[in-house]
């Protein structure tokens, strides 16, 4: 029953999509027709239908209706309700439906909030957005339909991968998709603005909110993914330069560049073409990300189960969209106002261009690093791995000038600033950073001295961003985001340099000394939970002043039968204590790994600060 509802609503949505695409060119040639007529009702119907099908899928998951193949493959009656619901988008089919849902809701919001803009621009945006929606609808209906029926109806499902049964991972995909899908609106609207000749101040002002919203969701989505990876996947790492992670980082770089540039377009009517190019690129990267993750072309820890025909579909769709936008861009390029004037070297405009240059560089490193192995294999049949050392080697040297520039740049004035802007105060801060870094690294150990320049640059940025809170010229949201970024870099660096790790084989009652701490394996017990059993250990970590208890677990999930190792992490403002244990055969012995990760919590806080700056800037403008 629910399967039919879901299926039919998707077909109705498909029909409305086709109708809109057919009607919009006709409406374009008629003036004075308000979009809020027929098209608006079609869009509303479409969104409603997609919402219905999404709700239908959630309900099938909640009631564990195993006549639905997706539910059968990804759920189980013994799962807690929360994970039954999050299981809806924890699989390929459901997550695509979520994509589609967000696509259509965003379009609806766009239609409602763009009423004061020109008709032509609105209809064109709808048109491009509907093409994307149509693509997704076809993709879902013909390659990954979440409403496939199973007969005979199985009694029990096969369960959700336990590694996905986690609160951070349950909300991570929806948040990330809000970011990805937001970029589709930017894409459609920039093409529409290009064709209707309205790439200007008003458009910039309008689309800026979408850029910010996408950027905020993408940042938070990446944050959630990293937090999850930190406590679930590895030994205390939070970023592995895994292709799937890279794929979310690429549109982030692009969006960051875009909203810096769009400010210039809004304030100074410059860089029109560049804004359009960035808008197109951002969405292309989001889509390429979907392709790379879903097609299984890449080797990653977290790819979905895949099927080459899906890959071919997304690839062709992506190819059509990109080629289409390239032709539109070149065809309508001369409609863009071209009041080209050179910008003065010391000015906000130049500062933003330099920011863009660095963003594009970081983007190209990540993009090339991610896809190069695929290209090499096809061309040459050679297989290579591109991992953390590659990214570090290319990004770190550029990070140093970037950080210093980020400290100085934001204080430049529009149009023209004094060349002696790099004043005594900044020089003092710079010398101070050199001294602090030197003392710090000297104490940590001489082997880290090679990272001195990086420390100097990040401490310099940190000091300047704090100082900037006293300057009135720039706005608060920017100060918060920039401060957050400097805090982020600094925490990552300090964390990297000061992290300590200890591993040993222990049995209950054993004690080990590590640095100035004592690690005691106090006890071991078995816990029974709804859908898993666990072996819970109790460790006491104590030094002279205080002691903490850490209780890592080894869980045995029953559906599907899987073992997961749950680290126990105790966070304080200064450091995280991270402990995991594993079973050894040597009777009674367990392998214990203990890590001290300083300033870990500040990495998360700083990303929240960065995003908060974005939120503030939206609220302030509209409030």
């Amino acid at each position: 029953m629910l399967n039919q509802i879901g299926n039919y609503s998707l077909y109705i949505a498909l029909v409305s999509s086709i109708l809109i695409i057919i009607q919009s060119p006709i409406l374009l040639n008629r003036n004075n027709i308000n979009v809020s007529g027929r098209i608006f009702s079609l869009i509303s119907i479409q969104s409603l239908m997609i919402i219905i099908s999404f709700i239908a899928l959630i309900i099938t998951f909640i009631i564990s209706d195993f006549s639905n193949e997706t539910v059968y493959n990804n759920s189980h009656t013994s799962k807690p309700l929360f994970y039954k619901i999050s299981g809806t988008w924890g699989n390929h089919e459901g997550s695509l439906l979520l994509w589609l849902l967000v696509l259509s809701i965003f379009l609806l919001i766009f239609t409602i909030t763009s009423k004061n803009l020109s008709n032509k621009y609105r209809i064109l945006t709808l048109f491009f957005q509907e093409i994307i929606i149509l693509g997704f609808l076809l993709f879902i209906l013909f390659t990954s339909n979440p409403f496939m029926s199973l007969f005979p109806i199985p009694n029990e499902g096969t369960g959700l991968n336990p590694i996905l049964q986690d609160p951070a991972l349950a909300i991570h995909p929806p948040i990330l998709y809000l970011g990805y899908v937001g970029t589709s609106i930017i894409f459609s609207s920039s093409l529409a603005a290009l064709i209707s000749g309205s790439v200007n101040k008003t458009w910039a002002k309008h689309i800026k909110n979408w850029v910010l919203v996408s950027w905020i969701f993408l940042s938070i989505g990446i944050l959630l993914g990293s937090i999850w990876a930190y406590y679930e996947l590895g030994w205390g790492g939070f970023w592995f330069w895994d292709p799937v992670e890279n794929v979310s980082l690429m549109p982030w770089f692009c969006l960051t560049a875009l909203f810096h540039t769009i400010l210039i377009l809004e304030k100074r009517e410059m860089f029109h073409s560049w804004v359009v190019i960035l808008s197109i690129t951002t969405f292309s990267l989001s889509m390429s990300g979907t392709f790379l993750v879903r097609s299984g072309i890449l080797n990653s820890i977290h790819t979905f189960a895949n099927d080459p025909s899906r890959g071919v579909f997304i690839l062709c769709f992506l190819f059509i969209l990109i080629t289409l936008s390239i032709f539109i861009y070149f065809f309508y390029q001369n409609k863009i106002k071209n009041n080209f004037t050179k910008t003065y070297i010391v000015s906000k405009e130049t500062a933003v261009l330099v920011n863009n240059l660095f963003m594009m560089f970081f983007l190209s490193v990540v993009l090339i690093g991610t896809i190069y192995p695929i290209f090499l294999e096809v061309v040459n049949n050679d297989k290579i791995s591109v991992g953390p050392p590659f990214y570090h080697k290319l990004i770190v040297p550029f990070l140093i000038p970037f950080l210093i520039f980020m400290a100085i740049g934001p204080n430049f004035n529009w149009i023209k600033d004094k060349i002696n802007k790099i004043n005594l105060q900044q020089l003092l801060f710079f010398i101070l950073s050199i001294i602090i870094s030197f003392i710090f690294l000297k104490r940590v150990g001489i082997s880290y001295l090679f990272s001195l320049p990086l420390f100097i640059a990040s401490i310099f940025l940190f000091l300047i961003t704090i100082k900037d809170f006293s300057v009135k010229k720039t706005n608060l949201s920017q100060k918060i985001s920039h401060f957050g970024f400097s805090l982020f870099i600094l925490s990552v660096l300090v964390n990297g340099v000061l992290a300590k790790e200890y591993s040993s084989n222990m049995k209950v009652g054993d004690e080990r000394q590590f640095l100035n701490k004592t690690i005691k394996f106090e006890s071991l017990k078995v816990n029974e939970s709804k859908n898993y059993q666990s072996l819970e250990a109790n460790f006491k970590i104590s030094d002279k002043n205080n002691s903490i208890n850490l209780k890592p677990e080894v869980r045995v999930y029953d559906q599907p039968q899987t073992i997961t190792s749950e680290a126990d992490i105790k966070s304080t403002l200064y450091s995280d204590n991270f402990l995991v244990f594993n079973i050894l055969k040597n009777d009674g012995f367990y392998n214990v790994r203990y890590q001290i990760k300083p300033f870990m919590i500040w990495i998360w806080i700083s990303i929240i600060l960065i995003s908060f700056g974005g939120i503030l800037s939206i609220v302030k403008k509209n409030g």
Partner: protein
Amino acid sequence: MVRNIKLIAIVFLVIVSFLILLIGLNKTNNYSPNLNSSNIDFNFKAKFLYSNEETTLYELINDKDFSLINIWASWCLPCRDEHPYLLNLNSLGKLNIIGINYKDSEVNAKKFIKELGNPYSKIVVDPSGVNSIELGAYGVPETILINNNSKTILKKYIGPLDDKKLAELKMIIKNEN
């Protein structure tokens, strides 16, 4: 004019990328290393399962023309499935089949052999898995065919033997003779 060149260049780039990714889609993305014949380390040292003596690969592969190194373990289910194939190959009498017992307990390993029969002329143990890595292996089961005279790898199978692989192995031996 300049604009057209730019357009053509970009479209060309997109098409090339599209084609490459399309081909890439059909390639398997699970890596398996090429058999690189020069890379066997014949100084490889290991202990026998049925005695405490140490041996090297040189000593192990001096019998007959071909050696078949098979990495196995009693806890590995596919190893159980491929065992009849090994017995079958042994019955040919042309192969010197060497077993490498991977990360296993002595008791279980001996029980496995007792239960299913012994196709191996010699069995050495690899309790830490290090020897298998020195052979360039992944895990269990894995089978390597070696030409004893030229000391080269003729064929390498990752995963259990099956009818197809068995036929192929027999073919290779026949052709080499």
